């Protein structure tokens, strides 16, 4: 009898809690993994809503969302896919905005391997250079633009290995299987410094800007937690977190 009462009590309290605090399902580009975790923690503390993140490649999310994936908000790694979803009426009109502008880094897990000017690329003494699949991942596209601009595309082509997302690309380099690779600065950078290895911060003029857009999806239209999350993402508190991972943030 008393056990039954406890169970009923628990059930009632969880129903009560969920009536106030909502949940938002967010599809998050892999490069934004670390800041998303920090923002989600802070968001839950400040608003009581829970943000549940699914991490992956932007191209894959686009295909999933078009086929009915249950996401409320999409934090893409580019501005192309959100715009396309908007044109296809899969989003809440007017909800699209740039939440971060990414930076590209040439990174190695070995300290001292990559120099501050990226001359290691021209020396071409490595066995494998990891990049993200340029067809699916914007950081991979930016990496190929850098190689083109430096006139090294043909020279390094036989040495390129591709990760399916920027996270897998980093894993190839972190495990030492590729000596170096183009990753998102946010993956190897925290609080103003490199967290491991050595890196060249690629100058922005060597590639098109990596504008990362967010959008509320049609599925999240009537979910107050989705709007709350996007508002939170625009707040100075979230901006500070995003910047601490090496992104640039425009004023909203």
């Amino acid at each position, binding site marked *: 009898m008393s056990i039954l009462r406890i169970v009923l009590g628990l059930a009632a309290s969880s129903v009560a809690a969920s009536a106030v605090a909502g949940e938002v399902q967010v599809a998050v580009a892999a490069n934004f993994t670390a800041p998303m975790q920090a923002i989600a923690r802070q968001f839950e503390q400040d608003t009581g809503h829970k943000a549940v993140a699914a991490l992956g*490649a932007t*191209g*894959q999310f*686009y*295909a999933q969302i078009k086929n009915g994936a249950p996401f409320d908000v999409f934090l893409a790694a580019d501005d192309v896919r959100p715009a396309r979803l908007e044109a296809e009426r899969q989003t809440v009109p007017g909800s699209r905005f740039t939440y971060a502008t990414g930076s590209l880094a040439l990174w190695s897990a070995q300290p001292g391997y990559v120099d501050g000017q990226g001359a290691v690329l021209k020396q071409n003494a490595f*066995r*494998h250079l*990891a990049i993200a*699949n340029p*067809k*699916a991942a914007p950081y991979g596209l930016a990496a190929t633009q850098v190689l083109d601009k430096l006139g090294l595309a043909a020279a390094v082509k036989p040495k*390129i*290995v*591709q*990760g*399916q997302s920027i996270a*897998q690309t980093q*894993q*190839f380099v972190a*495990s*030492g*299987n*590729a000596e170096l690779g183009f990753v998102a600065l946010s993956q190897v950078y925290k609080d103003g410094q490199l967290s491991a290895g050595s890196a060249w911060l690629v100058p922005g003029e060597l590639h098109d800007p990596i504008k990362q857009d967010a959008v509320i999806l049609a599925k999240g239209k009537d979910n107050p937690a989705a709007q709350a999350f996007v508002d939170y993402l625009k707040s100075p508190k979230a901006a500070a977190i995003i910047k601490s991972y090496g992104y640039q943030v425009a004023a909203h």
Partner: protein
Amino acid sequence: MPLDSSDLAAIWLTIQLASLTTLLLLLIGTPIAWWLARTRSPLKGPVGAVVALPLVLPPTVLGFYLLVVMGPQGPVGQATQALGLGVLPFTFAGLVVGSVVYSLPFVVQPLQNAFEAIGARPLEAAATLRASPRDCFFSVVLPLARPGFITAGILGFAHTVGEFGVVLMIGGNIEGRTRVVSVQIYDHVEALEYAQAHWLAGGMVAFSFVVLLLLYTRRRGATVW
């Protein structure tokens, strides 16, 4: 046909990978299966379980460990470097090693079943006729176990063609070297090239159906081969 040269390269690479893997597995798997079928050793259980592990482990586990073990800091990676072979991830040889591990139970288990079904009597009969154990294996066991070898070969080949997670994690997506059909399909889907994805994916469905059809009709009329 909307398949381009990179699609054809992926198909050709997949055929090469599956053929070489199947050949190696028949060579490696036969002694293992023979031992498992005949032994009374207490190690039979543990060895059988290790062989069956790839059946239940997610490919991500295999891919992750292969990447670490064959990488420059891993034991296999250290050994291959010491031998002057470099490291195996991102190479065709690395994919072959991964595929052999991944498809091992699909070859060993049918062979083991075939060997067990033969039983001890034909072997004893051959021994009384003074056949050496070697002669006995080649002129009695192999012919009797032929259906088992065919099943093992078909399953090993088909399962390697269907490999995805392991290749994704240790391959590095290099055209002509590590980009097999399953990864090529994934690429097309991610890049929204659905027409090409449909051709390749449809081809895979047709191929797999034909293989399984072959397997199941053969089982019914066992003497056709």
